[in-house]
């Protein structure tokens, strides 16, 4: 198929984010990444939760499923399992994915389903007017909090690694091309990928501003020694430990880039296909025929065979 331009991934829907919002950068990076990967819009599905960030699907000219607060991953799980041929990307806010939806976030890591999760990490609940999100640190008081935040921040990288994600990265929404590259790698990765995108909320977050990030961010890949990829099962723990340590760095210097990749672990789809060979990409559950001429594929004969254990023949004695 001819390759598609970036423009073809845009819709006419007006992006109603605040001018200057970091979400624009994420959207742009997605469009670019989709174009460079030449994703078929018809077999690409962007799933989101609820929040400023979760409006993303409406601005992308691929299938969009804008779900419920915190439930993007859960919806996406059904989509991907029922039709593993679809390319599935999940967008959500930090509140969405790491607060109300954290149970699904952890569960996805345990499954290694082949989908990509993009966390719009702005440290606030944007769409509900700036309350503290789970990534805001203790003692911090962004603009609209009447009192300082008392809860410790969750570290998305650490949580992702503890949960079992096999591609874990951090990016910055204003570095669109860098994010785009990570996105491409994440989408191409076989397994659950997560990208923690630092995303300035210019309306409510007066702490983690573009100004704040400007001099602090650096790229992991600038260190030629940095190798986040597990190339041998024996390396797994070591690589995880290194990534976790890096993830703690949050001060004058903040790393972005790929923290951890494990291409060796089987995806959930693979596990399922191994257990049940009838499950396959060639004949995904969603597209299987279940009837012919109005009748079920399970007719009288099939019924008797399938449910033999329940059937009792009556014989008068």
């Amino acid at each position, binding site marked *: 198929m001819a390759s598609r331009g970036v423009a073809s991934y845009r819709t006419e829907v007006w992006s109603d984010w605040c001018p200057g919002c970091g979400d624009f950068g994420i959207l742009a990076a997605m469009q670019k990444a989709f174009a460079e990967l030449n994703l078929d*819009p018809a077999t690409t599905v962007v799933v989101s939760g609820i929040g400023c960030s979760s409006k993303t699907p409406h601005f992308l000219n691929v299938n969009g499923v804008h779900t419920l607060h915190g439930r993007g991953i859960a919806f996406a*799980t*059904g989509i991907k399992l029922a039709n593993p041929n679809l390319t599935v990307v999940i967008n959500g806010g930090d509140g969405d994915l790491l607060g109300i939806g954290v149970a699904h976030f952890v569960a996805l890591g345990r499954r290694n389903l082949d989908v990509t999760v993009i966390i719009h990490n702005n440290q606030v609940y944007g769409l509900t007017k700036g309350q503290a999100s789970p990534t805001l640190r203790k003692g911090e008081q962004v603009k609209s909090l009447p009192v300082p935040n008392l809860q410790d921040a969750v570290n998305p990288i650490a949580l992702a690694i503890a949960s079992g994600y096999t591609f874990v990265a951090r990016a910055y929404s204003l570095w669109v091309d860098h994010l785009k590259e990570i996105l491409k790698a994440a989408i191409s990765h076989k397994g659950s990928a997560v990208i923690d995108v630092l995303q300035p909320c210019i309306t409510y977050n007066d702490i983690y501003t573009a100004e704040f990030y400007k001099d602090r961010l650096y790229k992991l890949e600038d260190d030629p020694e940095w190798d986040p990829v597990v190339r041998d099962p024996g390396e797994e723990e070591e690589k995880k430990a290194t990534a976790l340590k890096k993830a703690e760095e949050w001060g004058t210097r903040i790393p972005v880039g790929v923290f951890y990749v494990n291409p060796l672990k089987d995806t959930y789809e693979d596990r399922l296909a191994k257990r049940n060979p*009838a499950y396959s990409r060639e004949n995904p559950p969603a*597209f*299987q025929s279940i009837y012919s001429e109005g*009748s079920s594929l399970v007719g009288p004969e099939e019924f008797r065979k399938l*449910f033999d254990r329940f059937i*009792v023949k009556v014989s008068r*004695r």
Partner: protein
Amino acid sequence: MASDLHLLVGGAQGSGLETTMQVLAPAYASLGYGVMANREYFSNIVGRHSYIHMRISSSGEPKALQYPVDFIGAMDAESVFTHYDDIREGGFLLYDMGTARTRLVQIASMEPDLRNRLLENFKKLGIQPPTVESVVSYLEKDVGVNVIGLSFTALFEVLIKKHGLTRAQAQRFRSSILIGAIAGLSGLDREALELGLEKRFGSRPKVLEINKDFVASVADEIEREYGTPLKLAEPKAPYSEYVVASGNDAVAMGKIVGGVRYQAYYPITPASDESVLLEAYEGLKIDGESLGSIAILQTEDEIAAISSVIGAALTGARSSTATSGPGFSLMVEALGWAGKNDVPIVVTYYQRGGPSTGLPTRGSQSDLLFTLFASHGEFPRMILSSGDHLEAFYDAIEAYNLAEKYQMPVIHLLDKFLANMVASMPIPDLEGVRIERGETIFEAPRGPFKRFPRDKPIAPRPVLGSGAITWYTGDEHDEYGHIDEDPVNRNIMYERRWKKMEIADKEIPEEFRAKYYGPEDAKVLLVGWGSVKIPALEAIEVLGEEGVRAAYLHVRMLSPLPKRLISDVLSRFDPENVIAVEANYLGQASKLITMETGFLFKKFVLKWTGRPIYLNELVEGVLDIVKNGRSRVVLSYGK
């Protein structure tokens, strides 16, 4: 010879009690008898009292359970104490003589309420101190029960010697003793008995072999000693085959026939057995060939279950979840999203005793109004409720059809009674089963697609991956599925959703949605839904024999409610003679009928102990209303 045999087998949870049902049900069915068996158990894995209550009917149909029973088999002392008054005069009690000296106060697993009540009863009856022995002797002498004492230990010794088992292994054949005794007393054909044992133990030849030998020896022994006083009349067998299955099983089979391709669940009693059964069928294999595959996912919670089901439904897979009250309570937010987005999902909902954790292993019909209004905001949904096993099977299929045809969530409302009761039902009419997928489209023109055209309430539904590009959102949407807050569009889309309900209400025959059973000139009308059908159908017969001409109006579809038919039927009766029969406190279906028709119910037979409504108490309840003018009878039979 009796036309029906009523049995009760009691013992500790985890002691193999279910085996009796799993062996006897197919055994009797193979002779053409109708079988119905219920299992009552605590929310407990091992140790609490549990029992199987069974009826074997020469009518050939599975019939309603009732008390008192003809035979009680007590695996332990607790069963004797618990069920001493469940047995009819002239009935049989089998117990383990090894428990004879056991005193009521020693039974730690018995709940204090029951223990205290029994202590009081036994005191009144002069059974002092209450031991198995003293109770048994009271039953024998004062009630006229035939008591059969066996030494279980002695029987186990035989097993140990003859088959070289350890004592622990031998103990596992406890239920075999009861099966043997029942087979003996009822003169059960030995081949049928072996068939029953094969159904249960077919995969474990060694156990099967020992069982065949052991059960037969007990049966022969008992028959030799007591004859066959419980022999049944020849069955009038209308069927040449039966499916012997629980409601959970029947629904799982229905789902498979209906083409389920995705099911997600979180474990919960009494729903998860259905999903676990589906798991075993994930490959849909017949003779090594696969008909397809069912993707089944055990999720992290019920929110994820229903959410993923919606996702799967968007891809075109027939998708469902199965749950019970607490699980459904967590699903209501997502239910609204499905309703808002015309997504065909099926939620199989097995009601148990509420509120909250309630009586998690007991039944109820207390969630109707909840399911009808669950989730914030207003959107249409369908509610189907099955009256018996066969209806449950068909409804499981119909639920998918309705969901896809009318593009809305369908709740298939069952209860623990049906879920766990095992019944013999005829092989369903599979030729008659239709698969209707409505406007579901697997190949669509490429590009953005108007999924929600203003002028088509039921519109073409290209699935994800069909070629079309579609959008969905929980916000109010425009024709493409994008967010839209415009008031004019809002009115149109809101009405568009409800229009589907109007269409469904016109198209789905009211005769399917409700059915009148009984004589046209009946004077008394019972109105019920769900598994109330089982005792109600027989109750109107019994009432007829008692001189009360009664009929039963069974409501199978609660939404859209067939209100014209219901109003018609109701208008033919004196309101004083219309009785709502429900396993709940509020009379929920009656309230719903009032809401839709204005007809105010005045008479109620209700039950909420978590035990099923038994035929005997239902008849008595109705008589109490009809003869004594009572307006509200609360049933409470069953341990």
